[in-house]
């Protein structure tokens, strides 16, 4: 009540203009559209997530890339591939660009998050990877190859020895080359994929020679970025919290196979490498820590307080922004199926134990005739959906989306 009368007194003194401002300030205390979008994403309500997240897509601020990555994730998982492609390409172009000098200079002396967010190499690679999957799904193998190439180029800025280990992008480049009739380039790409990840049986052109269905499974949650080092000036990735480690895929009740790991995003995140900016961050953190220690060691409170105040006001925090709607791992399964409609059942396992609340059943999933079928699934609790995944008709160079034959539709 006292607070109310204080506010009322303030409004009376300030006038009607300030009253409006105070109301606006009060209403801004609820969750933002972005946070509501992220919450919707986590409960697999991708349509709602897109509606909220698209409100931020054109905001020309330091988080432009992050807003578009999140929108891209929601649109991709919701099957809205045109919107997803646009969002990922907006983000990828900004990530590749060299803009943001003023913000970057500020970030060297202030908090690191003052700079324009452009993501770590693995995040840049994933944005391009998703873009490539969309083009591949549409049968535009040239643009798909180009997008996967960008994913590999993004990985080039990782630490030495880890610069060509985004194996799934190499694999997809190989598949694109095969589709556009460049057999030699396809062979080289498959060899590179196998070299980067020799445990995956599908990274072999012989193994997948007559396969027409590629299933990509996204497991778990993105690695989490935390502050570490002196005064939290450095960032570090720790595992995202999830249990699923593999998946088995069934089509019309018949087991197609067990998924095979293709990319571990935690490993990708941890092998991004330390650079000169981390050295600057560590120095900022060390100075801040030193000032605090000096303040504590002072006998006279006045200089002690001055040093403490200087230390507390000195910004040194690491940039903890991240694209946390990513999965933790990407798995693959390649197979051959006759064209038609199938019921796909995906069982997820934590070690050897089946996770019943993660089971997914998808009806009327079409396997295309005369074209590769790409299916992308994502693990999640209670994500069972008995309806056909949203299917985007490709409007690409007059191509018609002919319905598959032999399948019944509700």
């Amino acid at each position, binding site marked *: 009540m006292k607070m109310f009368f204080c506010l009322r007194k303030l409004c*009376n*003194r*300030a*006038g*009607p*203009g*300030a009253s409006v*401002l105070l109301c*606006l300030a009060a209403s801004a205390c609820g969750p933002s559209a972005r946070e509501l979008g992220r919450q919707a994403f986590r409960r697999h309500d991708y349509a709602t997530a897109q509606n909220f997240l698209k409100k931020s897509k054109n905001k*020309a*601020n330091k988080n432009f890339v992050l807003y578009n990555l999140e929108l891209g994730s929601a649109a991709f998982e919701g099957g809205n591939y045109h919107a997803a492609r646009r969002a990922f*390409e907006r983000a990828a*172009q*900004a990530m*590749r*660009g*060299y*803009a*943001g*000098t003023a913000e*970057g*200079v500020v*970030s*060297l002396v202030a908090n*690191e998050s003052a*700079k324009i967010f*452009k993501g770590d*190499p693995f995040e840049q690679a994933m944005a391009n990877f998703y*873009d490539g999957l969309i*083009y591949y799904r549409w049968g535009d193998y*040239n*643009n*798909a*190859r*180009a*997008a996967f*190439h*960008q994913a590999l*180029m993004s990985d*080039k*800025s990782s630490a030495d020895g880890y*610069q060509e280990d985004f194996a799934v992008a190499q694999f997809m480049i190989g598949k694109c080359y095969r589709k556009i009739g460049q057999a030699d380039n396809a062979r080289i790409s498959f060899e590179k994929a196998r070299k980067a990840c020799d445990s995956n049986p599908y990274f072999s052109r012989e193994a997948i020679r007559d396969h027409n269905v590629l299933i990509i499974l996204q497991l778990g949650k993105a690695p989490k970025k935390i502050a570490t080092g002196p005064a939290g000036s450095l960032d570090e990735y720790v595992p995202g919290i999830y249990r699923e480690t593999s998946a088995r895929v069934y089509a019309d009740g018949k087991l197609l196979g067990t998924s095979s790991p293709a990319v571990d995003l935690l490993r990708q995140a941890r092998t991004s490498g330390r*650079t*000169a*900016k981390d050295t*600057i961050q560590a120095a900022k953190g060390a100075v801040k820590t030193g000032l605090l220690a000096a303040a504590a060691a002072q006998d006279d409170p006045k200089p002690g307080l001055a040093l403490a105040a200087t230390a507390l006001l000195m910004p040194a925090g690491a940039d903890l922004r991240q694209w946390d709607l990513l999965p933790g791992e990407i798995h693959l399964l390649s197979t051959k199926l006759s064209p038609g409609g199938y019921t796909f059942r995906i069982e997820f396992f934590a070690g050897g134990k089946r996770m019943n609340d993660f089971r997914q059943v998808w009806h009327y999933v079409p396997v295309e005739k005369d074209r590769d079928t790409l299916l992308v699934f994502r693990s999640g609790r209670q994500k069972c959906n008995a309806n056909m995944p949203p299917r985007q008709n490709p409007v690409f*160079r*007059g191509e018609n989306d002919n319905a598959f034959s032999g399948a019944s539709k509700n």
Partner: protein
Amino acid sequence: MSVSSKALTPILIAAVAVISGCADYGRVAPDSEDPFNSTTLDSKDIEATIQLMARAIVKLPQFASTDKPPTVAFAEVVNNGPEPIDTELFLEQIRELLMEHAGGKIAFLNRALSEAVLRERDLKRRGEVTSSSRKAVGGADFFLAGTIRAHDKGSARLRSTYTLVNFNLTDAESMQIIWGKTYKVKKTGKQAIWDR
């Protein structure tokens, strides 16, 4: 000292305006530099390519006469470059420039509408829709096709991209390439220290 409400209100409004951040928007020329410049093709390169090709095509001796303008159909622009791009953009814009400046010396076929046109002709000949005239479907004298290629290298913070955009005209009878031109651009870039 009391602050009058008349003075406080505009100050508060101004503070909110500053705090909310200044958006920046402006219309720019298509061939201006992109705010997110990178080493790959930008709108400036696309405009330069289109202008280069259109200016060269309109001067070809094959298109010197308006008596019976040769017909040109579009084949594909193949993207072997380093990033996804809408390749239709090149062909459409070249066609537009040529239609504007060639003085009727070049005719274009819209093969993208082949199915719709043939369906409509069929309906007309069956009398199911009205028809004001009957014409033969145009055959192409030349095909305009293109390729985007690039040599894209990078490591750590450095990137170098050499992009070549080639267009050529092929005789639709003899398969002879009667003209070809390439727009070349090489760009290098270095990521700032704060970005990596």
